């Protein structure tokens, strides 16, 4: 099913709609479920950051430290989770040069959690 949608997308010629369609079908077919879960989380974090920025534009910068803390927590989580996704993405492991990344999932998640601990201690200090 997935392969047919890819072929139909590429066969319908050029144009933004067909590009978007091939992109979508390629993502749906080629990306495993657990990476999709991570992507959904990243997207949610990203949207939280956007919402905070928009709120700050509306009400002003007054508790600037609180804004910075909230915004940095989303940006930091975003960056760290993207790193996590890079480490667990099997495509990255295909290259022999990246073989050092073949860590166990537990190790990868532990690294990610530790980095998040440091990040959120900073955030809590900053939030006032």
């Amino acid at each position, binding site marked *: 099913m997935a392969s047919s949608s890819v072929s139909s997308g590429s066969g319908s010629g050029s144009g933004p709609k067909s590009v978007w369609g091939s992109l979508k079908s390629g993502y749906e077919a080629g990306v*495993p*479920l*657990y990476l999709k*879960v*991570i992507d959904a*989380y990243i997207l*949610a*974090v990203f949207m*939280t950051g956007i*919402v*905070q920025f928009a*709120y700050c534009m509306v*009400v002003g910068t*007054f*508790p600037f430290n*609180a*804004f910075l*803390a*909230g*915004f940095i*927590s*989303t940006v930091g*989580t975003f960056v760290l*989770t993207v790193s996590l996704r890079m480490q*667990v993405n*099997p*495509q990255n*492991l*295909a290259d022999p040069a990246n073989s050092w990344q*073949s860590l*166990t*999932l*537990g190790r990868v*998640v532990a690294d990610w*959690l530790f980095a*998040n601990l440091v990040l*959120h201690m900073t*955030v*809590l200090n900053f*939030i*006032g």
Partner: protein
Amino acid sequence: MAGSFWYRLQPRGSTRWVLTMLGMIFMLLIVMGGAGVVAIGPDGRDRVVVIVPTLSDMQEKYKTIQEHLVETGYAVTVKALDAPDTAEILLMQDGEYVFDTAVSLVPRAQNLGPGWSAGAVLDFVDQGGSVFVAADYNYGAFTKQLAAGLGVQLDDKLNVVIDHGSFDAGLDQDGSHSFIKAGGVTKAKPIVNAGSPSASSILFKGVGASLYTSNELVEPVLWGSPSAYCGRKFESATDIPLASGNEVVLGAVLQARNTGTGRGAYIGGVAMLQDQVMQLAGVKHRDFYLDLLSWTCGERGVLKAENVRHWLANNGEQRGTYKVQDDIGFALDVFEWAGALGHWIPTTPEDMQVEFTMLNPYIRARLVPLVSESSGESASMHANLTIPDVIGIYKFEIAYVRTGYSHVALMENVNVRPFWHNEYERFIPQAYPYYASAFVMMGSLIVFTAVVLYGKPTVDAERQHKAKDAR
């Protein structure tokens, strides 16, 4: 005014002191009897020495001045340069000044004897003494130097002020138009005793002058009309005169910087103070010159400021260190010496300002009277300030310099510190979205970790599978 009629006239040798003591006792009795109000200079400064060329001059020419001083309550000593006894009267004895005010009516004198050099008299002003100096067209070295020390540059000797447009026809007998009407007079209230004399009723005959621009303490009080100029009588003016028009200074005052009472007054024509002119020229002329004399003695315009205080607006507590953006109050008490009453009275100038300064003034605020609830009147001048948002060492500064008033110069240091870490606002309502975001991020970590590690199908299994595929 009926009482306190004593002064030391013509003291001779050792009897001088006996006379002095008798006079003091006599005066004390009169004052204790409540016979009259005694008006004198600040804090009992009532010792005046009048310097005249000859003893007879005092009785014949300066009776108006003498009676004015004595009736006002001053202890008047006469130093006549021709009488051996009085000529020896010193300005300073045993390291202390014997007088509070010196009135020099000897424009022609080259020197006044030991201890009376122009420099010594200027030192006297620096130490809080007052000096009234009268010049004339034929002035001597002493008067020239003393006037120069007070910031007044005299015209060349024998020059006078001539005004063909504004002279007193009755008194100008020789037709030289040198007995002139003044063109302008100061508006400073303490000097003109709160009156507003018209300049043309004040007459003048004497030497012209200009003020040294380098002396910032001297101010003109009487000046010429636009047609006045400095020149020689009956000669055409061929050279550029020292001054002309309103720039011709006929009288000037100097308020010393250091003390409230240190004052100098200058008048270019000694004849204006003599009885004959005083009577002929009218009461306004007379009042102006007598007011100038009593101002010199310190009867009016001597200010004193004390009890500087500042406090935190919300609890009234005075501190040496305030926080940025604190609301504070500042106040001080200002008094003016009331010569007519003989004590300090509260005063509230309209134009007094306080500056909150760190290198440059961050705040300049007008001081307004602080009305006390109990008495309804107060000497306190008060301002509400908000500390600027810049930390550092500041000073409250008051620099009140007005013509006719003694200077008020005060400084008080305070520190301004930043907010302490625990003094910032917390749990601000509009910051709650940020708080929520941060805690949602932290909560989502736990959920996400659980999903990744224990979700079905487990991420790990799928990952291993895919990794095999990729190889």
